């Protein structure tokens, strides 16, 4: 589908955020094009999760503008619930509703936000669970699922709302190493369907293989950005080099 608009899918301009006296974001500009997978890397405390959480206003930015498909996300008079259903979010700690089955984790927003009928919502939920390979676990409670399965249900929950952008906040950081692969596989398939994705993660190998663009953040600012090849093989900045050598163990 050729997007008629010239605007990026997600646009962040001049984002600032303070936590008390701590200046967490110092003027961040990011734009994510349609169907682009953008990876944000950086040391902990660099502000990358805060930036991501500002995109659907789980954190309220102190200054700056955010647009989704040209529609303002920030500012007065924005229908926050309406804009949030167009932005999917996946959390480090999954945050599945523990009292609801996998299917009902997915259908809750379909029923209560989109106002779908039970049958409609069930069909959509089953399709989303199918897409993450968990249709056979639809009636399981989260406690009966592995971490990797829980995260895939969380992806299905966000996906079922057919968002225009999906935000991933360290989606594999809480997983045992052997469970990471399934989640990354689902994300790779999502990219192939043309989903626009902004990902904060430490999965270097995945960034190298799947990302269209890598952004390096440090100290609340963007240090540099570019294709994964260029960033990993030939970083411009000393801060990028020192970060990369630390996370790749100097290899």
């Amino acid at each position, binding site marked *: 589908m050729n997007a008629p608009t010239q605007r990026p899918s997600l646009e962040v301009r001049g984002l600032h955020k303070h936590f008390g006296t701590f200046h967490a974001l110092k003027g961040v500009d990011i734009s994510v094009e349609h169907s682009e997978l953008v990876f944000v890397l950086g040391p902990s405390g660099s502000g990358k999760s805060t930036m991501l959480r500002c995109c*659907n206003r*789980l954190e309220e930015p102190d200054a700056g503008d955010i647009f989704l498909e040209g529609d303002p996300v920030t500012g007065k008079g924005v229908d926050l*619930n*309406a804009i*949030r*259903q167009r*932005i*999917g*979010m996946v*959390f480090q*700690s999954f*945050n*599945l*509703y*523990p*009292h609801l089955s996998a299917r009902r984790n997915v259908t*809750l*927003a379909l029923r*209560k*936000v989109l106002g779908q009928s039970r049958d409609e919502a069930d069909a959509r939920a089953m399709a989303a669970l199918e897409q993450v390979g968990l249709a056979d676990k639809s009636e399981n*409670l*989260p*406690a009966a699922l592995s971490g990797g399965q*829980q995260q895939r249900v*969380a992806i299905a*929950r*966000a996906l079922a*709302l057919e968002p225009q952008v999906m935000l991933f906040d360290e989606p594999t950081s809480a997983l045992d190493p052997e469970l990471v692969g399934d989640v990354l596989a689902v994300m790779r398939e999502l990219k192939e369907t043309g989903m626009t994705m902004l990902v904060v993660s430490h999965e270097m190998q995945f960034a190298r293989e799947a990302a269209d663009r890598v952004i390096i953040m440090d100290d609340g600012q963007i240090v540099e950005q570019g294709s994964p090849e260029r960033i990993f093989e030939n970083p411009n900045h000393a801060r990028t080099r020192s970060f990369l050598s630390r996370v790749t163990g100097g290899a």
Partner: protein
Amino acid sequence: METEALSGLERFAQTFLNWEVLVKYAPSILAGVGVTVWLSVLIILVGMTLGTLLACLRAYRVGPLSFLIVVFADVFRALPPLVVILLVFFGLPNAGIYLSAFMVLFVVLTLILAAFAEEILWAGITSVDKGQWEAARSTGLGFTQTLGYVILPQAMRLAIPPLTNRAIAITKMTALGTVIGVPDILNQATTAQSFSGNASPLLLAALAYVLLFLPFVIMSRWLERRYSWKKA
């Protein structure tokens, strides 16, 4: 020695297990059971509902409203129930408000249960992980929807064992209605005791309380075990 012990035992039986007295006053005590049950059901239904409502209102964190709820909950948890019952029963008529003894007992115990239920549920609401709020809100669910569909069910699960215990403790206080003349189990029994000059009706009352409340005590034990599982 032996005959004296036997007569002691007989005296004991005469006092607490006098068959004639038991038969004579059983119907009035049964009527008392009806009053106690009816009051208990009303108190639990209205008190729990009110307490839940207050805990939910408090979740909106509107400063003055939260403050009033906290004041209400603390005052009613601090006051001895009998003090409130007497204050309302003997005080309100002076202000031109006349409530039946049944009504006074119902209103006071309901408010006390609501105060405890509010605190228990509030503790449950605040102990639900912040990530649950974030996940729900990120899908476009509003604050009230998130509270109702995501947070409250989890808070309830944590609150059910202490709520059950509290409901038992407070419905047992219906016996306090005796002092203002509510014809509950204890009131019927003390009346029967003073008419007959025999304590058997009191034993019958105690038996009635045990039969009434023991199932709930056992149920609360079961609930405590059932809900003590680890969360997901």
